[in-house]
C-alpha cells in the first residue's frame, strides 16, 4: 500500500487507483498483417520487470483518468508519474 501522485489530482491513497500493467506497448500499426506469434506476443507476453517498471494506472475512484507510473517492483517506491503522451520519465536514483 502506498501513495500515488496522480498527475491531475495530486497525492492520493493507492486504493483509489487500479493498475493496468506494462506501459509503452505500441499497438500494431497493421493488425491484419500480424502472425499468430506476433499477436500472442502483443496481447499476452509481458516484461514483468523485477526492478524499475513502467506501468499504466487509472485513478478509478477519483478523476478516472489514465497516466503512467515508474515504480520499483522490489520496494514499491514510485520514482515518477506522468500524463499519457508526455516523454517517458527518467529515473532518479
Amino acid at each position, binding site marked *: *500500500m502506498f501513495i500515488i501522485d496522480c498527475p491531475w489530482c495530486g497525492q492520493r491513497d*493507492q*486504493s483509489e487507483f*487500479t*493498475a493496468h*500493467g506494462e506501459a509503452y506497448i505500441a499497438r500494431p500499426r497493421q493488425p491484419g498483417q500480424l502472425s*499468430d*506469434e506476433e*499477436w*500472442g*506476443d502483443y*496481447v*499476452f*507476453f*509481458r*516484461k*514483468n*520487470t*523485477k526492478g524499475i*517498471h513502467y*506501468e499504466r*494506472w487509472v485513478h478509478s475512484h477519483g478523476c478516472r483518468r489514465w497516466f503512467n507510473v515508474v515504480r520499483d*517492483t*522490489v*520496494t*514499491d517506491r514510485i520514482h515518477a508519474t506522468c500524463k499519457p503522451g508526455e516523454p517517458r520519465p527518467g529515473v532518479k536514483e
Partner: protein
Amino acid sequence: MNRYSIFSLIRNAIRYHQDWQQSWRSPTPKKKYDVVIVGGGGHGLATAYYLAAECGISNVAVIEKGWLGGGNTGRNTTIVRSNYLWDESAAIYEHAMKLWEGLSQTLNYNVMFSQRGLLHLAHSVHDLQEIGRRGHAIHLNGIDSEFLTPSQVKQMVPFINLDCRYPVMGALLQKRGGTARHDAVAWGYARAADAAGVDIIQNCEVTGFRQQGNVIQGVETSQGFIAAGKVGCVVAGHCSVLAEMAGFRLPVESFPLQALVSEPVKPILDCVVMSGSIHAYISQSDKGELVIGAGSDAYNSYSQRGGFDVIEETVGPVLELYPVFSRMKMLRQWGGIVDVTIDRSPLISKTPVENLFFNCGWGTGGFKATPGSGHVFAHSIARGEMHPIAAPFSIDRFNSGALIDEGAAAAVAH
C-alpha cells in the same frame, strides 16, 4: 535411508532422540549432472524425486537459492482440491489428488494429508449457476462433488451465518478435498529424492544459463558453473526473471498474495470453506490456528508483502460469515509472490531453448498440484516430449489461442 516406523520411533525414544539420521545430505555440487532442477520448493523436489524414482535418472541436482520450501511452498494456505471446470485442469489436478492419497506411504513421510472436505459457497444466483455448471463438468470427469443446500452447509459448519450481507444460497462440496502440511511435503520429497541419489544444493542461486547455439549447456550459479544435459526451472515468483536470463519472455505477471493465521484455538472448523465471489477462504490447521487466504494485490510487485486494504477486504466477509471469530487475534500475516498467467492456468512447457523446460505460472493455487505437477514434469524431462497431461499447458497456447481459462471458470479463489 532409515525407514520411519513405529519401531524406529521406539528405538530412538529409548536413545533420547540423539541418533536420528539426517533427512538429506548437503553435498557440494558435482561438475555435471544429467538433469538440473532450478528451485527447491515442493514442485521442484517432486520433479527430482520422480526423475530418480520412476524415470531412472538419478544423476540429478536440485538448486535452491534459499532454503528448501522457503518460497511459496512455505507461504500457501495448504489447501488441496481437484474440482476444476476444464478437462485439462481436471486431468492434472485429479492426477495430483490420486498421488496425494498415497503420498505419505510412497515417501515414508507423514505429509499429514487430511481429506476433511472442502466447501465452495455460493452467495448469488450467478454463483449457484456457476457451481451448477462446474459441479456437472466435474462429475463428467469422474471427480467427486456434491451440491449442498444452505441447511446442509449449516450442518457442516454450525456457526456459519447464512443470512448476512453475503447470504449463503448453496455450496459445492468436494469430500476428497482438504489440506496437507506444506513443509512436510517439501521435506518428504527432499528426503526421498536424496535417498534415491539426488543432490540437493541449498544457498545456491542461479545467475545465468550457459547456452551453445540454441542448446542449454548448464547453469551459472553462485557456487560456480554446473553443467547439465537438461535443465528444468520450477520456480514461483521469479519465473520471468529466469526466462529473461535465458533470453525469452513469458505470458506471466507477478503479484503479492497474502495469507494470515490466528492464534491457536480448540478445534472448531473441521473442513475447508472457500468463497470465490467474496474471496474469503478459511480452514483450521492441526495446530489450531485459523488459516485465512486473502486476495492478491492488483499490481505487479516482487516485494513479498501486500497492502492492508486487502487484509481488510478479506477479514470483513470472514466476520460476516463467521461472527464467532470476531474476537480472534491474528498472529502472523505474510505475502508471497505469485506468477499469474492470463488464463490462470500454469505453464508446463518446452521453451525456445533446447533441453530447457519450464514448470511455472501456477498463480495463486500451485500447492494442491505439487505431486501431479512434479510427476508429469519429470516424465516430460526424461522423455524430451511433454507428458499427455502436461501437453495442453504449453507456452504455445498463447499463440494458438487454445487457452485453458480457469480465471473465468473458478473465479478468483484457487
